[in-house]
């Protein structure tokens, strides 16, 4: 019987990683991810997990160690956020191109300047092209479950790509919730015996890793990564099904609530999904019909599922907890616009940018966004392409 434990998001990550029986952890502490690293180093020091803990001097080194360890065929974990993720940036591309199935937890935090330790998604959304799978979680239970799923997805030989499991800094990383855990043996049985990396470093069989590949070969390796992302779509589906069988908790790449009878749909990622769901429920009591879609897996982008969910909608609001100054809108907005370009008839699409630097998205903000969507439905006009919710004028 599964134990129910009170865990913060960070603790849930560490607990899940322990149960996944990783071989190597290399990480550098950074607020609000710090507790993950502290707990994991405790577990290693107390002999609760048989892993090598490498205390590195920077995030650049942390991920570099993970790449090396992963190429030996080991199960590898790291964690970071914000400036740490920015410092890892060049190694992110190396990890994915070398096909290292590393799992990394990110306690999403705004990027400097100004210095800020609170949540937004500018760190991970800025890394969206790095070839990593990205999962955005809504609550601590999902954080725990997603870490376990992530190892199973990344290490599959059809995928062999690294995965970021994103949890909103402080909002989830430091919030204690009731978490239904699995038994160690259940987690073990769910995961692969070890990563299915085909060329583990072996002194008896020397090979070259990460050589130069000039215009005559570079392109082919990038094409392989595109294929791996394509494969990840079906593997993620399989893993979600298998996880549902094991735990009774069914995840999907997206979650749609109340969309069947709604002409307007709000799209959102991370912990704000819970706030939006509350608002949507409240407005239903007033007879206002708004649907909600949570994008859980952002890379690979859930094209098929979203196209199906949005095909007959009239208004779509994409909410970004990140901004991209000078762009047409936030990252999710741009992806949704691309997705709907071929749609007939085309819904009106608008962007909401909210919550930067940890600014709260209040229930009344959330209701306001729903009403904004309904107003667009009524008038048929998107007055401002990007609406900044919660900023002082």
């Amino acid at each position, binding site marked *: 019987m599964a134990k129910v434990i009170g865990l913060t998001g960070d603790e849930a990550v560490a607990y899940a990683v322990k149960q996944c029986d990783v071989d190597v952890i290399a990480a550098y502490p950074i607020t609000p991810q710090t507790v993950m690293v502290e707990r994991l180093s405790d577990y290693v020091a107390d002999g609760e997990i048989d892993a090598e803990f490498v205390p590195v001097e920077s995030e650049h080194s942390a991920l570099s160690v993970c790449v090396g360890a992963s190429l030996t065929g080991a199960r590898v974990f790291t964690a970071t956020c914000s400036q740490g993720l920015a410092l890892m940036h060049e190694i992110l591309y190396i990890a994915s191109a070398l096909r290292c199935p590393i799992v990394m937890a990110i306690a999403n935090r705004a990027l400097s300047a100004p210095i800020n330790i609170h949540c937004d998604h500018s760190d991970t959304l800025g890394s969206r092209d790095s070839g990593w799978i990205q999962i955005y979680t809504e609550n601590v239970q999902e954080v725990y479950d997603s870490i376990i799923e992530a190892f199973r997805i990344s290490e599959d030989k059809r995928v062999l790509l690294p995965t970021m499991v994103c949890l909103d800094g402080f909002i989830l990383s430091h919030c204690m919730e009731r978490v239904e855990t699995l038994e160690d043996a259940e987690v073990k049985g769910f995961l692969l015996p070890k990563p299915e990396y085909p060329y583990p470093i072996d002194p008896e069989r020397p090979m070259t890793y990460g050589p130069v590949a000039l215009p005559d070969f570079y392109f082919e390796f990038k094409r392989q990564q595109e294929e*791996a992302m394509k494969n990840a779509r079906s593997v993620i589906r399989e893993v979600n099904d298998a996880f549902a069988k094991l735990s009774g908790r069914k995840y999907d790449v997206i979650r749609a609530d109340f969309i069947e009878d709604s002409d307007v749909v709000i799209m959102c990622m991370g912990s704000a999904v819970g706030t939006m769901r509350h608002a949507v429920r409240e407005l239903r009591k007033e007879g206002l019909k708004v649907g909600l879609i949570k994008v859980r897996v952002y890379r690979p982008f859930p094209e098929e599922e979203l196209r199906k969910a949005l095909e007959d909608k009239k208004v779509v609001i994409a909410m970004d907890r990140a901004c991209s100054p000078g762009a047409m809108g936030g990252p999710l907005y741009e992806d949704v616009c691309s997705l709907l370009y071929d749609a007939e008839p085309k819904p009106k699409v608008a962007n909401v940018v909210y919550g930067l630097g940890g600014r709260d998205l209040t229930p009344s903000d959330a209701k306001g966004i729903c009403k904004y969507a309904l107003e667009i439905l009524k008038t048929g006009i998107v007055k401002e392409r990007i609406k900044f919710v919660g900023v002082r004028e």
Partner: protein
Amino acid sequence: MSKKPGWREIPIGTVLTEAGSSVKLKTGSWRAYRPIIDHTKCVRCLMCWLFCPDFSVKISEKEGKVERVDIDYDYCKGCGICAEVCPTKAIRMEPEVSG
């Protein structure tokens, strides 16, 4: 030239499954200047061997002693470091003439 393999045919993750394959990449073709050793001036001090960034100075030994120092033109990129460090000015750099 034979057709290069497509993306499905090469190992994933940029791995070269055969070790030491860099031997096949003859970097000597990159050279614009060619180092030429004047063996009458060479005192076999091996400074050129020590400093060559491409391991392109070959040593011939006889009875445990350096008999002769030569350039491996298959790999020498013509950087000129050997000529710069040679204490007896035994190495001169001459422009490559394409044939």
